[in-house]
């Protein structure tokens, strides 16, 4: 099969087939997701996604990264991901998570302490990184209550497959606002946003 040949060859797997339109669609999905925290938004402008990435995650990376956005890739990814991304976007890969403007982690994988990522400064909080989560899950079991901008009153969410310890760290960062991390959680062809402005309350059981 063609897909086998692709996987075997040295050629990077494909990116967007219509970069202008597909970038715009992926961006609008992230814009919507960060504007409406907790709300799953469709984000699948192209298929198939390469190297085991969620459709949404692949599209977001292609749409938002380039030469000017150092990217850090956490453990647990197919070795082809960084070559694929570099080939299509030119984004420089960095070894120090603190230098990255985009960081990619696995929902069920290891993640360095959240304060090892760039959080921005009080005068320039926009340099805080975007953390892109691969392999998130829309589980039904309520684990948290979110409040804040973009949320009408409050929203009950699951943990999206991320560990309770992760969310506890995320909660602890709320006091740093406007510094902080913006989370974009890929769940297959859907994406969920959790900007730094969202205030999280973990359920007792979590």
């Amino acid at each position: 099969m063609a897909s086998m040949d692709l996987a075997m060859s040295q050629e990077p797997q494909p990116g967007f087939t219509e970069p202008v339109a597909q970038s715009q669609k992926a961006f609008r999905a992230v814009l919507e997701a960060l504007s409406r925290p907790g709300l799953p938004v469709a984000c699948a402008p192209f298929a198939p996604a390469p190297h085991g990435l969620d459709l949404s995650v692949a599209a977001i990376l292609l749409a938002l990264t380039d030469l000017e956005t150092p990217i850090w890739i956490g453990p647990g990814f197919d070795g082809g991901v960084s070559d694929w991304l570099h080939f299509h976007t030119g984004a420089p890969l960095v070894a120090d998570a603190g230098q990255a403007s985009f960081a990619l982690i696995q929902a069920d994988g290891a993640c360095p302490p959240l304060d090892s990522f760039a959080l921005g400064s009080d005068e320039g909080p926009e340099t805080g990184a975007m953390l892109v989560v691969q392999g998130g899950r829309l589980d039904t079991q309520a684990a948290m209550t979110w409040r804040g901008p973009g949320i009408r009153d409050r929203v009950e969410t699951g943990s999206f497959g991320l560990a309770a310890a992760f969310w506890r760290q995320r909660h602890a960062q709320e006091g740093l606002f406007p510094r902080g991390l913006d989370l974009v959680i890929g769940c297959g062809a859907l994406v969920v946003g959790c900007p730094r402005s969202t205030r999280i309350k973990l359920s007792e059981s979590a």
Partner: protein
Amino acid sequence: MTALLDGYNFAFLDEQTKRMIRRALLKAVAIPGYQVPFGSREMPLPYGWGTGGIQVTAAVIGLDDTLKVIDQGADDTTNAVSIRRFFQRMTGVRTTVKTREATLIQTRHRVPETPLREGQILIYQVPIPEPLRWLEPRETETRKMHALSEYGAMHVKLYEDISRHGQVSTAYDYPVLVNGRYLMRSSPIPKFDTPKIHMCAALQLFGAGREKRIFAVPPYTDVRPLDFEDHPFSVESWPTSCALCGSADSFLDEIVLDDQGGRMFVCSDTDYCADRRAAGHAGPATTPAEVTT
């Protein structure tokens, strides 16, 4: 129908520039009311004429969108016509004058009267984004003041207004506090429109091209005008209603009819006014015959 212009990228900007603006927009949404610096580009329209709003629209717009452009509330003011035509030539997207039909609304100086809904995006053209600019002209200082939430100077200014004039003498561009954290200029819209920013169902994006700043108010975000308990914020009201549609609760433009002091008042929001007339409402200056045409 305007022909699509050859030789330019969709929505004029190159993809690299769009990505830069898009990243700034995402940060703006994540930090409501904070002014994100961005590498604003020269546009084929002059700075001060909506280049910030145009760059934001160009970075956001897609073929599925329906665009509405207003200036002073009206779709037919010359600069609104010019900007709408620019996007027709550069994208070929559908345009509309109907607030309800639009997915993107680029505006200067007004928030439409028709309440916005979820999924819509309102894009403001902003001349001077810094709310503290008249109190402190230096960017180096105002950045520190925002970092420290040091907004006492603005309260003092408003209080001085009250002690001098008996009220806050700011009629438009009224300072608001976004999400309890960032002081923001309201674009400049008239005070009348300020409450519409609060808990709006639509996403609100603000672009200042010449000043190279982007900021945002996500949907359902707390946006409060600065005021005092004994001098609460209030908006304009008119002793009359719209001469064309009879609306008593919209922002009215004052039309000077002659040099004898003759005046009439009509809705600034032309789509809202037309909708009302189509629904059979009439004002004192409209004959029933005109309503039906």
